[in-house]
């Protein structure tokens, strides 16, 4: 479509002629009319005012009520992690056996690191095999903070060669960990390098047929 049709009157548009514009009522007249209405409907006016006050007050109290997040029973809050979920233990390498260690002893180092959460205390380090015992340096208990690591030297002593596994594929260390959440024992399977070190050390320690 083209061309210009009749324009619709816009908002606030007034006709120039037709009905003459009424003179605005003076303020004094309005006040008088309201007073007259109030005189005739006094009880209704008071009641409406009371309702308005109550609603306004209620509305204000509702709008300014303490805001609490809606309960979401399925949405868990962030919790302190279990210690085993934030601790890594890795095998480093063989170490020189301390001078004061008993015969048929050997040493190696592991790295224990804490990735996040509150500090973790190592309260115990053991290994599962009858025929072996161990000590650690530093001695337990010791604490490691998030973002840091502890190098631990472990010295194992062969107490009974017959009860020490000469060729285990996946030997592990049991480490007891404690943090603000829980105390847990975790087996750290240190992999083939540790398995080889353990086998070779046991071979050497038990090669004379003792035990």
């Amino acid at each position, binding site marked *: 479509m083209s061309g210009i049709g009749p324009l619709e009157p816009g908002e606030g548009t007034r006709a120039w002629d037709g009905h003459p514009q009424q003179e605005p009522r003076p303020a004094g007249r309005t006040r008088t009319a309201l007073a007259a209405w109030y005189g005739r409907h006094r009880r209704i006016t008071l009641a409406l005012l009371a309702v308005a006050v109550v609603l306004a007050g209620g509305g204000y109290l509702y709008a300014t009520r303490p805001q609490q997040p809606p309960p979401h029973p399925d949405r*868990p809050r962030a919790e302190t992690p*279990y210690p085993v979920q934030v601790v890594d233990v890795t095998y480093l390498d063989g170490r020189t056996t301390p001078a004061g260690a008993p015969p048929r002893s050997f040493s190696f180092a592991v790295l224990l690191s804490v990735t996040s959460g509150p500090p973790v205390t190592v309260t115990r380090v053991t290994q599962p095999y009858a025929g072996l015992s161990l000590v650690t340096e530093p001695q337990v208990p010791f604490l490691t903070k998030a973002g840091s690591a502890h190098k631990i030297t472990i010295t194992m002593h062969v107490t009974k060669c017959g009860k020490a*596994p000469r060729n*285990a594929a*996946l030997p592990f260390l049991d480490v007891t960990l404690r943090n603000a959440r829980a105390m847990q024992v*975790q087996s*750290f399977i*240190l992999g083939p390098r540790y398995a080889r070190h353990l086998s070779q050390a046991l071979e050497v320690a038990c090669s004379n047929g003792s035990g």
Partner: protein
Amino acid sequence: MRQRSLIAITAALAAGALTLTACGSRDSGDKKDSGEGGGTTVVIGVDVPLTGDLSAMGLGIKNSADLAANNANKQKLVKGVNFKIEALDDQAQPSAGQQNASKFVSEKEVLGVVGPLNSSVAESMQKVFDDAKLVQVSPANTGPALTQGPDWQTKKVRGYKSYFRTATTDAIQGPFAAQYVFNEAKKKKVFVIDDKKTYGSGLAATFTDEFKKLGGKVVGTEHINPDAKDFSAVATKVKNSGAEVVYYGGEYPQAGPLSKQIKAAGAKIPLVGGDGIKDDTFMKLAGSEATGDLATSVGAPVEDLPSAKQFVADYKAAGYKEEYSAYGGYAYDSAWAVIEAVKKVVDANGGELPSDARAKITEAMQGVSFDGVTGKVSFDEFGDATNKQLTVYAVKNGAWVPVKSGTYSG
């Protein structure tokens, strides 16, 4: 009277208006998301047993992958891409799995596959996917050869670059079980049974190897037919062998009745198995005498992982009929790994999928790394999960209860 009515009407109208206002303000913060990412549709294929004995695990995997796709869409994780899953039933059969693999390959919209459950099924699918450069991430396969080649014990060689998994392998699971049985349960004589399948025989082998190295004695071995239900002859052999424990390489549909019949034969000894028996159906089949039976499972208990709580809550809220089962968390992470790989490829290609999307996504999978339901998700040079956690569960009061957990850091 008229005045009172007017007051009552005015008050009622005002109160009604206030109530409506209050309701309106509360609703405004709780808009529903359609879950649609819009634009291109990317299909994630899911291949698992949806029917048959192992469907409890398969349906948990399917639902969990679906949840991951829906969450990615809600988050609009990949702009312009809407993920959806297409699930096919392999009935735990290698032949069906291979047909499903070919079907996924033929569908252009399929850019990644989650599954399968069974290692034997995976063997039949790997080449089909690899030839098409279509990436596959299994949440449940534990057979070491799938990633490390048939001679994995002596020389690890990766056969298929399109195959990845979020589950830990039997190369760790079997020996971990052996260590627990020998050192902690103090059982020195074992009777080993398997179902002759890839998973069962492989797991039994890795257990046996380590158990012998520790000084344990294998007093008998048997293979059962996975289709059989009557194991009384094997149970009698176990009873007569003097075994202190039975190790079974296989899955819960056979493990349950086997445990029951061994006890009924008079051998009140625990049955130990792998992740394939760690399902609640095992208890239903094995009966009350299953107390003390053990299972290892790949991964930490999902319920204990802070990273998994959102998954557990979302799964419940989504209203899936079936439990997420043993591999739900791993299936979610497998699907999410595909989604992350798609994201990498789209981001690197100016916000669009390239014409060789499958090859690029397979390549991108190798570098995927994210904090998933089961912890840090990434893959080593063989396509195996770098996060290797294991848990030993014992049957106690009719439920699997964790009794020991381990982390592989080799």
